[in-house]
């Protein structure tokens, strides 16, 4: 680089010409300095992409972590039911002796509705040790379903006995009654469900059901006594006729 006034050679970094003493222009100074910069020094222009990369690095890493967390979160939400089922199973097994005692007390008192409510409220269906009671529980549940509907007749008569809904009410009751009477057909594959004591319990549930149907569904005692022999269609016919009598 030369001085623009005297033409002498300038050294890099000189603010003034060493020969004429006049100042070297800023433009010349910058171009001179940049021309002689050592290669190890940071270069302003070439460092810009590096800074951009480091600026994007943080959100990109955060994004990756969040994607992984979201996959884990979705899996957690999807399996939450299984997790809670396992927790309930564990809770049930922990108090198994108490539950069995309580269930037996309901059965001794012939409180099959109480039995059903206790069985479901404590999720005892999760307990494999109570599998033997599955048919009994199934019978009690269907008794409860019938009881639930028919005892509601007195307070919601308009709802159940409306012309367009009566057949639906009869159908609903028929399905539950049929489930009580066909328990042997549905669960007969396993003798453990039908030991003499459990069979006696289920017989008693049926007699309670017959009483409920006579008292609340308009069936006669004769009709109720023949219920076990009836097919689903015949049951429906009898129950619908009974409801029409009310």
């Amino acid at each position, binding site marked *: 680089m030369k001085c623009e006034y005297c033409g002498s050679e300038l050294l890099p970094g000189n603010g003034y010409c060493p020969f004429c003493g006049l100042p070297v222009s800023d433009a010349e100074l910058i171009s001179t300095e940049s021309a002689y910069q050592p290669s190890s020094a940071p270069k302003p222009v070439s460092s*810009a992409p590096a800074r*951009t990369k480091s*600026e*994007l690095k943080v*959100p*990109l890493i*955060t*994004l990756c972590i*969040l*994607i992984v*967390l*979201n996959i884990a*979160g*979705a899996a*957690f*939400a999807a399996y*939450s*039911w299984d*997790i*809670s*089922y396992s*927790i*309930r199973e564990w*809770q049930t097994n922990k108090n198994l002796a108490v539950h069995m005692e309580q269930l037996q007390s309901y059965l*001794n*008192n*012939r*409180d099959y*509705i*109480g039995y059903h*409510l*206790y069985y479901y*409220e*404590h999720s005892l269906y999760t307990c494999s040790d109570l599998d033997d009671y599955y048919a009994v529980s199934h019978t009690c549940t269907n008794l409860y379903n019938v*009881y*639930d509907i028919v*005892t*509601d007749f*007195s*307070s919601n008569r308009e709802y159940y006995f409306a012309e367009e809904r009566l057949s639906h009410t009869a159908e609903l009751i028929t399905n539950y009654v049929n489930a009580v009477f066909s328990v042997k057909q549905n669960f007969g594959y396993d003798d453990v469900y039908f030991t003499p004591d459990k069979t006696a319990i289920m017989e008693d549930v049926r*007699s*309670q059901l*017959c*009483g*409920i149907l*006579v*008292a*609340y569904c308009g069936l006669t*005692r004769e009709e*109720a006594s023949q219920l076990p022999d009836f097919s689903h269609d015949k049951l429906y016919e009898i129950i619908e006729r009974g409801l029409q009598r009310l």
Partner: protein
Amino acid sequence: MRSKKALQVILWVLAACLTASFLLFLSVGIQDIYWYSSPNPSYDHSYYEYLLEEDDYIQLIYTTKKQETASDDATPQYDEFSALAEYYKAASLYKAYIATEDFESAIMQLNIMKQNKDKIVEYQAYIERIHQLLQIDVTYPDIYFPY
């Protein structure tokens, strides 16, 4: 340079959305687990009164049983509601057994009714209401039958 800045903003917005969805997943999962593994609702006595006003005794039976499951520290009022629920259940079965002329079972239910009647103090009026609803006439036996 400006496009890089925009990209950065987009990435942060995306991160915010992913954070929100993660929290949503987490809350759904925790809620499910809480609901299924420990459904311990606590019912206010005004809810029971509402059920009695509505003649919804089936719901009363269900709710008292649920409450019994949830907590062991029963209040005197809860005891009364529970007794009313049991009374209704026994009375409805009493009617069923009378209908089939199974008098032994009917008396057993009558005993349960009497036992629960003695626990009902403040809500005595509802006993009569239960009789009306079920259309039963009740005379309690003097002797308790073992069951």
